[in-house]
């Protein structure tokens, strides 16, 4: 599986190189192939995704569902921040709450943490195993289960389908 990861990393890095240079001149291709090969040999082992999982179309479908959901939540988060910034007396009730997640893999947890950070009023400050600590700008509920449901929103289910 090691060689598989390196090759997969190489192809991915090459794709990014092609997008960034946006040319198929042979000099650019040779340099790109060399540079991305070095990068793949150095970092390929740390690739957090199992290459085989990438060939499952169901995961790609849920990724496509995830993107608009995420964009909409991100937009709502910004309206939320805008309202708080512009309101005269700062309406803040901040606190750091703990939350459990049922996601198994590191990459899924990373994406959950990132999604939480970009959604309204919440920011992940620490992950320990399956516990996330979240800075919440407006603590709406002190009950752990209800709080977890509000914070996770639609993301945990979607991410479980994509990565786990």
């Amino acid at each position, binding site marked *: 599986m090691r060689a598989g990861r390196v090759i997969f990393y190489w192809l991915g890095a090459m794709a990014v190189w092609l997008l960034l240079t946006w040319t198929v001149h042979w000099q650019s291709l040779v340099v790109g192939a060399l540079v991305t090969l070095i990068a793949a040999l150095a970092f390929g082992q740390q690739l957090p995704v199992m290459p085989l999982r990438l060939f499952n179309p169901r995961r790609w479908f849920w990724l496509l569902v995830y993107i608009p959901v995420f964009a909409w939540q991100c937009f709502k988060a910004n309206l939320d921040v805008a309202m708080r910034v512009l309101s005269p007396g700062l309406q803040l009730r901040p*606190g750091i709450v703990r939350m459990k997640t049922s996601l198994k893999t590191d990459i899924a947890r990373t994406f959950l943490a990132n999604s939480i950070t970009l959604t309204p009023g919440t920011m992940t400050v620490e992950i320990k195993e399956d516990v996330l600590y979240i800075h919440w700008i407006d603590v709406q509920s002190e009950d752990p289960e209800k709080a977890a449901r509000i914070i996770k929103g639609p993301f945990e289910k979607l991410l479980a389908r994509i990565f786990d």
Partner: protein
Amino acid sequence: MTEPLGWVFIIAGVIFNVLGCLGLVRFPDLYNRMQAATKSVTLGTCGILFGIFLQTGFSALGIKALVAVLFVVINLPVASHALSRGSLINGVKLWKKTIKDEFTEDRGGASIIDTEDPE
């Protein structure tokens, strides 16, 4: 058609960035400020980059802008996470009206919720 739409995205992005900076000034402590900065700057910057993509189309510049959107969305939350975690561990005070801090509770340290007004 896409050029005016691109301007809409760019202007909205700039407005969100300005609001984020305003939050940076107005919010009371590091953690709340980080929230304002992360969210607004992510959407604002992505808006500007996406506007550039709409204006230039599939050219070298437009594609670079799209790739940059991806990197910004992935990396900004990680940066804010690292900064706020480091601040918590090193005892940067939380605002006095903070309700609870289960992170410090679980670590077993002394409370770092501010007791008086910093101003």
